[in-house]
């Protein structure tokens, strides 16, 4: 069974903020972190281009005793129009997981330029 943390609202101050941890199902082969972006239909999310977020996923292979950086992404807020002129609903990073039982993950959100109001989604499936 997959781990899917449905988009949860987050209100994150400037600085480095920890979210999680979460247990990763043994069957999961990939983990994805998504941050909701400003669009016409989500006008309250990550509204300002001056709000810059570096999001990191950290992974534990020892049941949570220790975590190591696994993958990350960074972006500015505001509307981002894709090549088809639709607005990107989120920014995301994904990475294949090493096969092992008892894995855990947590996220760090490094925020500069303003408070981050967004939604966080974790998908390990």
């Amino acid at each position, binding site marked *: 069974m997959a781990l899917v943390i449905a988009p949860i609202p987050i209100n994150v101050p400037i600085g480095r903020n920890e979210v999680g941890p979460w247990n990763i199902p043994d069957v999961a082969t990939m983990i994805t972190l998504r941050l909701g*972006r400003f669009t016409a239909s989500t006008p309250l999310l990550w509204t300002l281009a001056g709000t810059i977020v*570096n999001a*990191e996923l950290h992974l534990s292979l020892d049941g949570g005793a220790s975590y*190591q*950086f*696994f*993958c*990350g*992404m*960074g*972006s*500015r807020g505001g509307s*981002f*129009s*894709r*090549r088809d*002129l639709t607005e*990107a609903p*989120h*920014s*995301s*990073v*994904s*990475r294949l997981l090493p096969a092992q039982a008892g894995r855990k993950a947590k996220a760090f959100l490094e925020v500069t330029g303003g408070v981050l109001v967004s939604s966080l989604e974790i998908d390990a499936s």
Partner: protein
Amino acid sequence: MALAFDAASGTQGTAVSSLSWSHTCSGVDRLLFAGAGNSSGTIATVSGITFNSVAMTVVFSLTDDAPAARSSLYRMVNPPTGSLTVAVTYSATQDEVGGASCSFTGVDQVTPIDTPATNFGTTSPATVAVTSATGDLVVDCVYWVRTAITVGALQTSRQEQENIGGFSSLGMSTEPGGATITMSWTSTNARWATGGVSINPSTALPRLGDSNAALT
């Protein structure tokens, strides 16, 4: 020490301007490559790639002629060992980005690579002819605006990031060297950019006691 593959890793993202992932180097006479691919309505340049916060050196960075896709390859001689961070920064937010890294051991630390070759196109296969030599190892990095890619028959796939944002794929592979090595990937026809380079083996003198040491 013979030239050998060490490790590979990678990740992918959407609507981002930077991407990072962990990579572990080990062994002696090390060489690390970081491949990066990006696609978007307006193709960004790679502002830089770092490993353990130290700038890597560009091998090639090219787009197709639309442009719709960019493939880039950077290198670092004698990278530090252990699990450390590869970080790619683009000049602007991109629809899709992919990152991959491959490390090698037994590499000439003075002249680690030869002159790279690049190519771009719109039809399958994506190919690039790389000048090499017997005993070398050729590495390539392809970025293709298709959701799945297949490595050439004589190559070994080291890292594939497929279905990036439901749009594109990044691949890195190796093939033993020869006079000219044509690196290839297949998919359905679409825009791609690729490049490759030959890695030179270390030239350490044989030591007394080595089974193949020749004394004259």
